[in-house]
């Protein structure tokens, strides 16, 4: 197991290096520059700015500077917010995005699985149709539409929750609902379909025939196997949601890190692009790694490593 983990870690580092290099190539090949402004400045000012941010250096020097910054976990100051380093931006933004994301995942997974089980147990009944209608709606309504709707209905028309910003648990309710509905729907549909499949399996019939507690059959025997596909999507879902979402954070004015993924590219803020990319990739790679480990626990047939002599 240890050997397997070491091997995976090595692969992770190589993957990260490839991502960083590709990002750098893509970044400098898109037209535009972080110093591009509509407002005109003199040539001299432009030159001063370029040398200030090392943009007048040849690409290979810039590349080496980036690799160095990644190796030392110090991405330097943002070009668009020069008083703050990329580490500050991510350090302040990530905990907030993580908090929002964690609650979102918890709400989405719990409600999604429950909805899926209910639908599967009442297959083709009214409850099933109802649950699946909710799921289809959840998948097809974009979260920014839902977000605006929620603010209008539950903050402006009926002032139950505050409309935006991030300062108390009450402020968290609307963004969590807006963000969790989509993943919840996906999880509900996945759970339902695999549940249906699993429930027709021989071992379930066997368990029923033995007169086991139906409750136990569902949660211990059926659900455990039905969860495999859910676990599969959890890796990407975790990385995606925990590192923040641009649109929801923008609508609710949440000071998370989601904005930097989009804005840094629009503004060609090179250090921030590199910082967010490295951070996100490392997070995603690690989440996928956790998922692989979780497979092994859920399904002993999946072997993570070959035993000697096999």
């Amino acid at each position: 197991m240890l050997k397997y983990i070491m091997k995976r870690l090595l692969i992770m580092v190589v993957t990260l290096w490839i991502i960083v290099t590709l990002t750098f190539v893509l970044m400098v090949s898109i037209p535009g520059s972080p110093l591009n402004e509509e407002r005109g400045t003199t040539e001299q000012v432009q030159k001063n700015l370029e040398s200030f941010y090392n943009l007048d250096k040849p690409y290979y020097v810039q590349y080496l500077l980036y690799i160095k910054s990644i190796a030392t976990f110090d991405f330097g100051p943002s070009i668009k917010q020069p008083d703050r380093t990329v580490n500050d931006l991510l350090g302040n933004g990530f905990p907030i995005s993580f908090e929002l994301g964690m609650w979102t995942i918890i709400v989405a997974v719990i409600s999604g699985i429950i909805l899926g089980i209910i639908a599967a147990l009442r297959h083709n009944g009214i409850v099933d149709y109802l649950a699946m209608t909710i799921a289809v709606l959840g998948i097809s309504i974009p979260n920014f539409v839902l977000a605006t709707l929620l603010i209008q209905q539950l903050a402006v028309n009926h002032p139950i929750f505050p409309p935006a910003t991030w300062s108390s648990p009450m402020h968290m309710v609307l963004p969590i609902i807006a963000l969790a509905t989509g993943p919840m729907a996906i999880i509900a549909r996945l759970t339902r379909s695999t549940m249906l499949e699993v429930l027709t399996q021989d071992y379930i019939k066997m368990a029923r025939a033995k007169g086991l507690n139906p409750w136990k059959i569902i949660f211990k025997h059926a659900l455990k196997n039905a969860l495999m596909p859910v676990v599969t999507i959890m890796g990407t879902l975790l990385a995606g949601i925990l590192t923040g979402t641009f649109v929801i954070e923008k609508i609710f004015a949440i000071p998370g890190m989601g904005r930097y993924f989009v804005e840094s590219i629009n503004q060609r803020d090179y250090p921030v692009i590199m910082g967010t990319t490295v951070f996100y990739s490392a997070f995603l790679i690690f989440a996928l790694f956790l998922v692989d480990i979780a497979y092994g626990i859920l399904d002993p047939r999946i072997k993570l490593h070959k035993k000697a002599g096999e």
Partner: protein
Amino acid sequence: MKKVFLFLVALIAVVTLAACTANQEAGKEDKNKGDQKQTDNADGDKQDKEKILYMNNSDEPTSLDPAIGFDAVSWNSLNNLMEGLARLGKDHNPEPAIAEKWDISEDGKTYTFHIRENANWSNGDPVTAGDFVYSWRYLLDPDTGSAASFLGYFIKGAEEYNSGKGSAEDVGVEAVDDKTLKVTLKEPTGFFLNIVTNPSFFPINEKVAKENPKWHAEADSFVSNGPFKLTEWKHNDHMLFEKNDKYWDVDNVKLDKVHWAMVNDPNTEYQMFESGDLDMTGIPSEMADQLIEGDNVEIVDQAGLAFYRFNVTKKPFQNKKIRKAFALAINQDDIVKFVTKTKEEAAKGFVSPGFKNPSGEEFRDANGDLVKFNPDEAKKLLEEGMKEEGYDKLPKVTLTYNTSEDNKAVAETMQSMFKENLGVDVTLENTEWNVFLEDQKALKHQLSRSSFLFDYGDPINFLESFITDSSMNRTGWSNKEYDKLIADAKKEADEEKRWDIMYKAEKLLAEEMPLFPIHFYNQVTIYKDGVTGVVRHPVGYVELKWADKE
């Protein structure tokens, strides 16, 4: 199965209960907030109750370092935290501020500012002439990397220092004594006082900055000399300003605190205003129709122009008549009335309204309408132009704008106006903002959307953009007569004459038409009842010194 059912019932009960408790709490919190606001309103009776103005800055300020934060999101904060030698008054003209008076030499090249005895920093230090010398040299230091440094080029020796050829000591800024600052200019610059009101020219507390070069990055270390001081700054979240009791004119500051949210989405901003979390809001463009005629809507000028640039190095716009034909085929009034819908003023000239010459006459009134919609004339000019160039068929024209719904609506309207008034099919093209700017600067477009916002209150700021080799030119247009007019205007000591030269320059621009105007900008704000005294300067920053809230 029964058990499953029971479980579900239990689950629903739990969820409902949870929701109820949440609702109760919500109700409570909301009520408290309501109470607090009510007491806020009842401020007239109780003097000890704080007046807090809730505003939105839309984004984190780029930087509160005066030399670096060269944009509206930084200026809105800086202009209220700091104060320069002069400050824009309620009528948008420079008034004595940190300097209580100034003397201008006969030739108009030397300004001597006398700094107030009671001008202090929020940490108690006196504001000295040395602080200004320090901050202006810092602005011009090439190692600072300031995008605003070119504004200082009017000062003697500034350009040389900024381009690495001169030294800091040769810059024409000198502290005669602690409270006297002497500034020597390159040319008599009639609008120099307007320039020193720009936040880039605010002082920096030399002692503080030398101890901690990052003094401006956090609230703890920020030292201000303006009406307010920075007491809280949670990055990307909010800022809190408090009345600065060390400010020389603190008696005229009415607000106790200003709370700045950083909400970037115009719809959310409006919804927060609706639910009472903000005291003022802009108008989301989709709602302009419904809201612009409402109560408490204030519309003020923003000095600046929305326009389109021709590229005179590409066919068919090398021809002056064809350029004019395209310009006269556009009905600016219709665009403002039916497309943008936020009551901007249609632009029939280039310099926006609000600039008055020494005898009080408006620049815009004096020069009148220079680019007026005239489809017949446009058609005639197009024919003549095509004949001059020997075209049977007009070369293909592509109109480029940077991707946005608002720009698209204007571009499509223009496309149909070209078709209707000139019979020309124009292709539309949109690109991402940064790519767009890169291409525009490299003269890759034929006809492209542009905008200009003033940095300081003088028409020359806009007019000088179109001299040969200016980085704002981006049209390929070069005209010796125009270059000379601008150079003359910058040298002219007699204000009347200087304005006459600028009138001429604008007329020449309309004659040559390397660009054509669409509309001037404005600032639209909806205020909550009882909010008064917020001044929005045409140069784009907000002034809260006189603001009050009932």
